[in-house]
């Protein structure tokens, strides 16, 4: 089949184009977040004092931090899924919430008595927090990579990392419903680490699973 015949074949009765990026990501994040919520409800459980916690500004600070990073990584992921779209300021959207939480952490540590600083950093759950966030990120991780496979990323390692970060941030957002920690130094360290685990996994998997 020569090139002219190939063109004729492709142009004969053009099929309706597959789902757009927006629709694929909406499906992936919807199902993935549902999966994460189920995992959290079954294996971890919602924190029993959630009704009291939602009255604390620190709780909402944590939620807003994870939500802003999730929105930023969604923006980056969508852009990296389509050929020839520049990232431009999208990466900056990721830096802002991290800088903000570190600023709050620095203020909290500066005001704390020297003996309390370790407690602010480690809380009660630093050992399990990153791993549990990584576990909750698994459903979104799989779903978002599926969404990307139907699109056309051209920078596969970066695209994989962005997909992983999107999964990690969504996982962290769900985890806030279980997690008892509220201190900014804790969130700025262990939450971030938990989000970076799937991001790293995505960077490793990207070149293999996203090829087209």
């Amino acid at each position, binding site marked *: 089949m*020569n*090139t002219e015949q190939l*063109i004729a074949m492709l142009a004969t009765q*053009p099929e309706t184009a597959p789902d*757009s990026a927006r629709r694929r990501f909406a499906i992936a994040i919807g199902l993935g977040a549902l999966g994460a919520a189920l995992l959290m409800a079954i294996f971890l459980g919602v924190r029993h004092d959630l009704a009291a916690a939602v009255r604390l500004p620190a709780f909402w600070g944590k939620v807003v931090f994870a939500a802003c990073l999730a929105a930023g990584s969604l923006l980056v992921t969508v852009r990296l899924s389509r050929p020839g779209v520049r990232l431009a300021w999208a990466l900056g959207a990721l830096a802002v919430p991290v800088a903000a939480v570190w600023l709050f952490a620095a203020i909290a540590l500066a005001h704390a008595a020297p003996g309390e600083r370790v407690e602010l950093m480690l809380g009660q759950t630093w050992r399990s927090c990153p791993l549990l966030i990584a576990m909750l990120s698994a459903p979104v991780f799989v779903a978002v990579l599926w969404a990307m496979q139907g699109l056309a990323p051209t920078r596969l390692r970066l695209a994989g990392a962005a997909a992983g970060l999107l999964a990690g941030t969504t996982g962290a957002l769900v985890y806030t419903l279980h997690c008892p920690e509220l201190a900014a130094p804790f969130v700025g360290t262990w939450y971030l680490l938990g989000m970076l685990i799937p991001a790293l996994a995505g960077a490793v998997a990207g070149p293999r699973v996203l090829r087209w």
Partner: protein
Amino acid sequence: MKVSSQTAAVSLHQAERVTDPVAPTNNKEPRLRELLVRGLAGEAAAYQAFLKELSAHLRGFLRKRLARLPDDVEDLVQESLLAVHNQRHTYDAGQPLTAWVHAIARYKLVDFLRRRGSRDAVTGSLDDVDEILAVASYEAIEARRDIGRLLAELPDRHRLPIVHVKLEGLSVVEAARLTGMSESAVKVGVHRGLKALAAKLREGR
């Protein structure tokens, strides 16, 4: 028949004469974009014209960059065309078509060079976005691999819908009746089959 690299070099030379290097690049973009947008809306003739124009630009772009591997140019033109078709839903009408096409051609070229393990064989810059619609070469040489033969290797659920709908031009309803498949299976078969064909082109190197 395989064209020797010498003849390829000659046709490359002729192609350069066809190309007008001082032609302003910007008047290509709106025309091609209009053809693509109409094609995506279902106008087969506009879509065919788009792919035809695009193939000349892809060939011009790739020939310059694969000057050391001229026999691979047409295969890569075909692979890029199939990629453009399979990923056409990732084009946003508000986006410059030049950037979209360049990113796809660049990706396919880098992927091809990586598979071959000859990344250094590339001649010319990979990042010159505007060049892709500025060069054109209308002289196809024969591809090394026959897409028709690869098509014959696909399983029936992919092959039959492509053969009946895309090659013989039967309607989806007719193809469904002929094969005993459901109409949606025919549509899915065309879509998945073309993706499977692209994967075969990639692996076959």
